[in-house]
């Protein structure tokens, strides 16, 4: 038993050992297989998997860029960023969302509809995404939240940056406003698309929109680690973004505010320009609205109210409003006629009143003055704004020559380039009518063009530029609203103008007068006239219009030479006056608002040493002399009083740029 057991035991032992050996060899192979697999994953493909693991765990968040600010000429902030108090909730961190939201409703007096909206929003997003419960809390509400914070687990009071316009509706049409970026904004502007974050505010109108790419700033970047469920675990890296550029304007806030006051919610526009530098000192369109309303989305009822207002607060009348210039065009018509030698200053025309109007091909052309002006010289015709004289002057001049002069002085073109949604207006010519309307030009149309009615359409800013270019002695300037550092000294500019004038005299031997006068793309300070005497004559006539008895704006004159100004009134008809109406001779207040004349006044001052040009429009304001000119009187006093202060700052600016 033992022996056989031993024998078979030996055999059995052999079998086991042999099979164990085979199996052990297999084991070694498998072990090496595993080692090989580890090697290939961890050594060969390490980089690939390291990248994948980083992709798993790292997320980048772009922070909202901090927008650049706007300052006025004196460095006052007119569009700034301010701290906004918000309340955020991360639903994931809230034990019971309903209880919290009801508690918050009590504390903040949230409306039911707001509550519904929040719940809808919460259901749409992921539980770890921030829900903005309140975008703009008052300080009181914010401190209340902080007081109750211990019982509001999951609620987070947050400080963020918002836009603020401290002068409310004063700058609305210059700056525009910001609001949440829309799909259109993202599609039309690459920079916005690239830097967009939820809740980003971008410019919608005005300079805020035009300068978007400079203002917007760059995103800060926050890199953080997330877990498998996308929850943020910790911050790894933080790079602060760069604030957008601060933009300095040429505008004086005090004057801007004053123009706002002068217009006093009437529909109209005031613009003031430096006649040498082209700097816009103020530019106001009225009525206005508060751009701060748009920051968090305007209420529907309020928006409707603004949109439906018959005075059109949304329209920037200064650059986008088109009006007949009325009699304000007369100095230009006179200049054009003189420059083209179709009349001399000695031409006399008899204005015989409504009983004996000028007749041409069966049409009657009335002067505004019922009893007529009698025999008028050119000077008197400008001074007293005689229509009959200018019918005759225009007839002699012809529409095409007037067109060329008008274009030269800035009508029919954008004044500020691309910044605003500017309207070019219309400066008619025979060619224009053929192309735009497809009809031949009639001589009668030339006549009414001569008094700024008919097809001619201008913006208030174009008339301001026209006046400025007359007032500076007839030299080309390019208006600007954004302050440029490489400012030239006023004396240098005057010298350059003088040089331009001399160059012109030298050249005149080579070029015909018309060629010289109407060459395109003038350089800054180029002379726009052929004979300087003609400019001087027109300016003198404008002086008389304001400062001599029988002048149309005589009642608005200032005698103190420090403030003394010269200007031209305008009363633009908005509809043809019928014979019956002419008989009635109604007062402005007796006519329905929409049919009243627009009141115009363009002027420059101080007369002895001019520096500023203004253009004033009051829509449906009646006559220029009764409504618009008195505004100029107040305005010039204010502007010239501010002049010294502006010069002081200017000198400081020039000094710093020299260093």
């Amino acid at each position, binding site marked *: 038993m033992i022996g056989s057991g031993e024998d*078979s*035991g030996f*055999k*059995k*032992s052999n*079998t*086991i*050992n042999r*099979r*164990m050996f085979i*199996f*052990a060899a297999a*084991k070694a192979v*498998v*072990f090496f*297989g*595993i*080692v090989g*697999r*580890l*090697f290939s*994953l*961890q*050594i060969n*493909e*390490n980089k*690939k*998997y*390291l990248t*994948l*693991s980083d992709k*798993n*765990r790292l997320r980048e968040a772009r922070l909202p860029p901090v927008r650049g600010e706007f300052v006025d000429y004196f460095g006052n902030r007119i569009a700034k960023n301010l701290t906004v108090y918000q309340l955020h909730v991360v639903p994931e961190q809230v034990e019971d969302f309903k209880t919290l939201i009801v508690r918050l409703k009590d504390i903040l007096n949230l409306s039911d509809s707001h509550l519904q909206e929040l719940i809808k929003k919460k259901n749409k997003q992921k539980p770890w995404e921030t829900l903005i419960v309140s975008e703009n809390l008052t300080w009181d509400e914010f401190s209340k939240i902080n007081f109750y914070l211990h019982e509001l687990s999951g609620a987070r009071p947050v400080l963020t940056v918002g836009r603020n316009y401290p002068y409310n509706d004063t700058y609305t049409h210059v700056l525009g406003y910001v609001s949440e970026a829309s799909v259109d904004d993202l599609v039309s502007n690459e920079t916005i698309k690239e830097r967009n974050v939820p809740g980003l505010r971008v410019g919608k109108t005005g300079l805020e929109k035009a300068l978007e790419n400079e203002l917007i700033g760059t995103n800060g970047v926050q890199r953080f*680690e*997330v*877990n*498998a*469920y996308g929850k943020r*675990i910790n911050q790894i890296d933080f790079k602060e973004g760069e604030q957008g550029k601060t933009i300095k304007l040429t505008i004086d806030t005090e004057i801007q505010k004053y123009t706002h006051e002068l217009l006093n919610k009437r529909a109209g526009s005031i613009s003031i320009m430096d006649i040498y530098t082209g700097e816009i000192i103020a530019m106001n369109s009225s009525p206005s609205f508060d751009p701060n309303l748009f920051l968090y989305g305007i209420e529907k009822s309020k928006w409707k109210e603004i949109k439906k207002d018959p005075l059109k607060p949304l329209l920037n009348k200064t650059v986008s409003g088109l009006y007949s210039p009325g009699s304000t065009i007369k100095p230009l018509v006179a200049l054009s006629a003189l420059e083209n030698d179709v009349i001399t200053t000695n031409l006399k025309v008899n204005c015989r009143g409504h009983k004996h109007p000028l007749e041409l091909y069966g049409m009657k052309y009335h002067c505004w003055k019922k009893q007529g002006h009698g025999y008028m010289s050119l000077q008197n015709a400008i001074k007293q704004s005689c229509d009959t004289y200018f019918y005759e002057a225009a007839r002699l001049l012809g529409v095409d020559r007037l067109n060329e002069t008008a274009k030269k002085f800035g009508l029919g073109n954008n004044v500020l380039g691309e910044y605003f949604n500017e309207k070019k207006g219309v400066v008619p010519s025979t060619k224009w009518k053929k192309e735009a309307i497809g009809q031949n030009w009639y001589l009668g149309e030339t006549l009414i063009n001569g008094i700024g009615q008919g097809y001619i359409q201008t913006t208030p800013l174009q008339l301001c530029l026209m006046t400025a270019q007359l007032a500076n002695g007839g030299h080309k300037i390019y208006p600007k609203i954004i302050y440029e550092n490489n400012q030239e000294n006023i004396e240098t500019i005057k010298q350059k103008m003088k040089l331009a004038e001399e160059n012109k005299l030298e050249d005149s031997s080579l070029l015909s007068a018309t060629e010289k006068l109407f060459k395109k793309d003038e350089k800054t300070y180029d002379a726009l006239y052929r004979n300087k005497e003609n400019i001087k004559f027109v300016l003198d006539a404008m002086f008389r219009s304001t400062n001599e008895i029988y002048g149309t704006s005589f009642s608005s004159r200032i005698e103190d030479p420090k403030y003394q100004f010269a200007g031209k009134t305008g009363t633009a008809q908005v509809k043809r006056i019928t014979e019956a109406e002419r008989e009635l001779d109604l007062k402005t207040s007796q006519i329905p608002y929409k049919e009243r004349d627009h009141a115009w006044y363009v002027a420059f001052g101080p007369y002895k040493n001019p520096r500023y040009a203004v253009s004033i429009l009051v829509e449906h304001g009646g006559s220029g002399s009764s409504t618009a000119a008195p505004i100029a009187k107040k305005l010039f006093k204010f502007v010239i009083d501010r002049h010294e202060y502006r010069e002081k700052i200017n000198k400081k600016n020039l000094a710093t740029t020299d260093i």
Partner: protein
Amino acid sequence: MFLQSSLSDKSTFFQKLRSLDYVMLITILIIGIISSFAMYSTDGGELRYHSESHIVRFVVFFTMMIFISFINIKTWHTLGYLFYIIVLGLLIWASLFGITAQGSQRWINLYFINLQPSELMKIAIIICFAKYYHRIQVAHVNRIRNIIIPILILIVPISLVISQPDLGTSILIALSGIIVLWLAGVNIKYFFYSSLVFIISAPFVISFLKPYQKLRILTFFDPDKDPLGAGYQIIQSKIAVGSGGLTGKGFLKGTQGYLEFLPEKHTDFIFTLFSEEFGFIGSILLLILYAILIFRILRIGSFSRNFFGKFFCFGFGSAIFIYITVNMSMVLGLLPIVGSPLPIMSYGGSSMLATMIGLGIVMSTKIYSRQLIS
């Protein structure tokens, strides 16, 4: 012979203590310590539930293993069938009254521990077969009767475990048993034919599998097909291991682990977590420790004078090897994901208990290596 046996039988306690395999003990201790650190890392660098109970279990079961070492190997031989029957009873109990978790009914609530009898079956099947083949002579191994009985012994628990359902454990039980059959000298052609049958019938078997089990097998062949669904575990595990590199991301710095990208990091994927933090070098080190452990077990088996001990050691050593390779191949994307813990490293009381019982019996084989069993 008698003299020797009586000598070993009556050797003093200190003699027994001296004949413990210290290399093996130290290897187990090192793996235990490594597993504690790994568990500490899964708890996010804090001593919390998983790490605490894992350490307690390791200490308790390690002590238990030492005690088992001193139980005469003869006792295990005597109680071999009984042990198998008890575990089988527990399995039936689990199937009837067990606790269900994650769609599988595999635990028995013993109040102080939730016991998973299928884990114990991995050991019981080896003990049972070791006893069965202890007596049978090589010449009789391939008799029909001696083929049928072991297959029955094997099929009953396997079918119970599959029905829980627990594919992973049932495969491991099957493999543990088959190794002993192989060692006992069952003719190669049986293995050949049965694997042929298995391959042919595999499509039919698969059609009987639960949908999630089918999905796992399909996913194995193409994990990128559904990277956020079924393929997620394999992809994330490979990313974790691969991103570990040569030296690893450092202790407690495995991002895949602590940011919860790794599924089941306490249990089946503990090696992934370890490999991410300690890299290629750490993984090789752990593999070497396991290799030493297996080598020591096989060495003890080869010195055993009784066939029961020999069968058990060879069987158990090979089973440990299979557990390790199946687990590692799984987390490295070489095999489909089936639940299979890594011995000692993985969290889980029953697995630890079974492993320690097995190691205790191996140690007892060492101490009583001269013991003859009639």
